[in-house]
């Protein structure tokens, strides 16, 4: 990038980033060690029995969900950004609601809805189709959010130029708009894919055998963790392939907004038929992803309250969940900024390597990261051992990449010119950061915080394995009840998760200043 900047040294930041990256890689190294030191006979046996099925299942689920979320997410973004119809603003924020719904809750709701004796036994939920449906309904907002933000941020003059040069509306969309959106869409898909391959709760309820599910089974069913290590390593390799592909896509297309001034794109006003179509489409998907499940949760919760299952302990569960998730998200943002900043602005091989190292944790399935951390902590920092610190570190290792996915594009959007201008006008490094860079990327930071908060609220396997004695979170409560088939008793905790994550989502939407500009 800019040669002027490359020569300015950043020792403290660099050291911090390197140290973080090093710590974040430790669990991965441990898993690699576990897998590679395994008896070759175990590898052979796994190849012969389990691995082909698991690989095919995992990759096809990731592919199916990506395809579906891409179609849903981009089309929703297109509808709310480029069209105007009654209720558009409500849909605009309502479409992020599924992010508040834990995947395992959605999975159960769908085993009820689609299962034998349920209201809509269209196809068996315990199948590829069922798993794809549930994961898609839960993750399309990632693609929607990022492509919507990019779309609003789009400089319409590019499209106008294309139209002026005689390109048709469709051609403009296909050859100008979508390529400009590609980095955002790909970033959203990367989030989706990483989410899918490391999900445990939904696939286990839907009995769809993926690598992560198999790893959890190995971890909880066996004393010997070699096989779990081997399967984890495969998982890491798959995810790395996706990540490298994503970076490659993004590297090929880096766009800067050169003008500071945006004009709202013309919104096309919909006629009655268009309104009906758009509303129907949005309502069906949002109903399936959020409204119907939420209504069921409310109904089940009411019957749980009637049974007297909701008592004072819930105050503790709520406190544990929120403080843990909020604290973790804050720590993770603080840790993530130097990594994302260095990689976005000084993409030296070293800085990029640091960033990639931080991504590694997302693909370490919860239980495996948990085991690695238990061993590491018991040797390195016994004082914190068995405390909440281990859990916080596990969350950061696991979810920092989700935050980085928002931090990175946010930092990439700022043109180096702005900072250079600030520097040349006499601002110091720190002042430039505070007065130019941070305000510009603030929304990315908030998005990162919210996403990590949401992930932490819903996290299951690592929490199960690492929670201190007597420290139950809402997610744990849902699981303890739901895995014993007491779904009505699980509903209040599930509903509380949804209710507690909703304000964070609201924050995400209302802070979006670009949306404010274009109204």
């Amino acid at each position, binding site marked *: 990038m800019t040669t002027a900047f490359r020569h300015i040294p950043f020792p403290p930041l660099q050291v911090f980033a390197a140290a973080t990256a090093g710590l974040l890689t430790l669990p991965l190294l441990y898993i690699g060690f576990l897998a590679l030191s395994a008896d070759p006979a175990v590898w052979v046996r796994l190849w012969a029995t389990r691995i082909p099925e698991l690989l095919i299942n995992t990759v096809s689920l990731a592919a199916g969900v990506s395809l579906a979320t891409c179609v849903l997410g981009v089309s929703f973004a297109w509808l709310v950004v480029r069209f105007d119809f009654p209720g558009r603003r409500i849909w605009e924020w309502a479409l992020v609601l599924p992010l508040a719904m834990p995947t395992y809750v959605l999975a159960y709701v769908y085993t009820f809805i689609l299962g034998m004796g349920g209201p809509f036994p269209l196809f068996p939920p315990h199948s590829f189709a069922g798993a794809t449906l549930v994961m898609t309904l839960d993750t399309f907002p990632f693609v929607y959010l990022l492509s919507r933000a990019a779309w609003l941020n789009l400089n319409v003059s590019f499209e106008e130029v294309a139209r002026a040069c005689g390109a048709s509306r469709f051609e403009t969309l296909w050859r100008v708009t979508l390529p400009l959106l590609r980095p955002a869409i790909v970033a959203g898909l990367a989030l989706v894919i990483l989410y899918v391959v490391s999900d445990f709760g939904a696939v286990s*309820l839907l009995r769809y*055998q993926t690598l992560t599910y198999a790893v959890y*089974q190995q*971890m909880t069913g066996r004393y010997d963790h070699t096989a779990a290590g081997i399967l984890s390593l495969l998982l890491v390799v798959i995810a790395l392939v996706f990540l490298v592909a994503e970076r490659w896509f993004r590297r090929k297309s880096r766009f800067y907004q050169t003008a500071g001034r945006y004009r709202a794109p013309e919104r096309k006003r919909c006629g009655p038929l268009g309104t009906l179509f758009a509303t129907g489409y949005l309502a069906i998907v949002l109903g399936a992803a959020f409204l119907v499940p939420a209504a069921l949760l409310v109904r089940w919760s009411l019957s749980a309250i009637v049974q007297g299952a909701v008592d004072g302990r819930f105050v503790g569960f709520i406190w544990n969940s929120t403080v843990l998730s909020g604290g973790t998200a*804050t720590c993770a943002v603080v840790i993530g900024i130097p990594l994302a900043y260095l990689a976005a602005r000084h993409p030296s091989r070293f800085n990029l390597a640091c960033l990639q190292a931080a991504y590694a944790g997302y693909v370490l399935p919860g239980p495996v990261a948990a085991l690695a951390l238990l061993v590491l902590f018991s040797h390195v920092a016994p004082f914190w051992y068995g405390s909440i610190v281990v859990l916080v570190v596990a969350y950061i290792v696991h979810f920092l990449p989700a935050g980085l996915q928002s931090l990175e594009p946010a930092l990439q959007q700022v043109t180096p010119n702005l900072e250079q201008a600030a520097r040349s006008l006499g601002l110091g490094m720190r002042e430039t950061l*505070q007065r130019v860079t941070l305000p510009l990327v603030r929304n990315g930071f908030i998005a990162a915080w919210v996403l990590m908060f949401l992930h932490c609220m819903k996290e299951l396997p690592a929490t199960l394995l690492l929670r201190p*004695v007597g420290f139950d979170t809402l997610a744990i409560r849902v699981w303890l009840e739901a895995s014993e088939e007491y779904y009505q008793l699980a509903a209040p905790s599930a509903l509380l998760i949804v209710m507690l994550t909703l304000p964070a989502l609201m924050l995400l939407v209302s802070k979006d200043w670009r949306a404010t500009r274009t109204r």
Partner: protein
Amino acid sequence: MKMHEGVRRPDRREVRPETVFPYRGMWPILILACLVSIAGQAPSSPAADRLVVYSGRAERLIKPVLDAFQARTGIQVDLLSSGTTELVNRLQVEGERTQADVLITNDAGSLERARELGLLRPLSMPETERAIPSQFRAPDNSWVGLSGRFWIVVYNTTRVKPGDITSILDLAAPRWKEKIAIPNSGSEYLQAGVSVIKATYGDEKTKRFLQGLKANAGTQVYQKSSQIVEAVAKGEADVGLVNHYYVYRHLATQPGAPIALLMPDQYEGGMGAIMNVAGVGVVRHTRHLDGAKRLVEFLVSQAGQKMFADLNKEYPLHPEVKADPALLERKTFRAATVPLARLAELREPTVTLIEQVGLR
């Protein structure tokens, strides 16, 4: 829309760029707050009248018993309930730093394994020896069985006649293709059950049984036994392999469900029903030995036994305590003769066999 009402003021960025960053100075505070709140959570030194129980038994099945103990003795009990194998793994990693005082699990093999790893403390307690017959205890009393459970066949009464199955091994027959539901290979019940079959019939026969089981189950492999019972009740499967109490538990909530329980391998010369026990052991590195012993004492007492077993519709091991009347009379069937303590040594070879066959 309410949430967009935040746009009362003009965009600050355009008006006064110098004051735009609202969080200036807040980062250090936030970081400090994080660190303080985290450090504050470091484990405090354990009080004398507290006990930490690691339980592989579901919370709802153990908490009432622990609450009763707490009410009786004033000793506060903190419970961590999780998977059995997971807890043994955790104890092993934690070593002498563990907070745990007592381990309760649903599988004798896991308790024996914990004993072999040196995680449990041998007890000389006359109370346990009086209450629990010796075949349900570790040789050195490191662990003590509390209740008995049987791995049985649950069947859908509209589709299967009780005479169709006499042995668990019948489930491998081709006639049950796509009709059976089984637990996944990580289940301690399955591992213990297959261990008993393996000890009785040898590797070859066990392997053929597992291959048949795998083919017949197809995708009906479940994480939880309660899901298997539900699948059989709904008719998604004709028969399933579960522990006996899941059937009673399902019938308790849904009395009309078309399911029934079949005690297999009772024919002349048959292996007998596969039995396992839930049990308790005191963690070697406990700092509350007295409290832990009092808990064990309570659990083997007649009152504790009755409560512990009845909560889950299991068979109490104390000979003078009667099982829940809803259960099949214990005297009417016999159990397989493989000693419980052997479940631990049999487990790894069994798991290898299960993996060779490729059960999920």
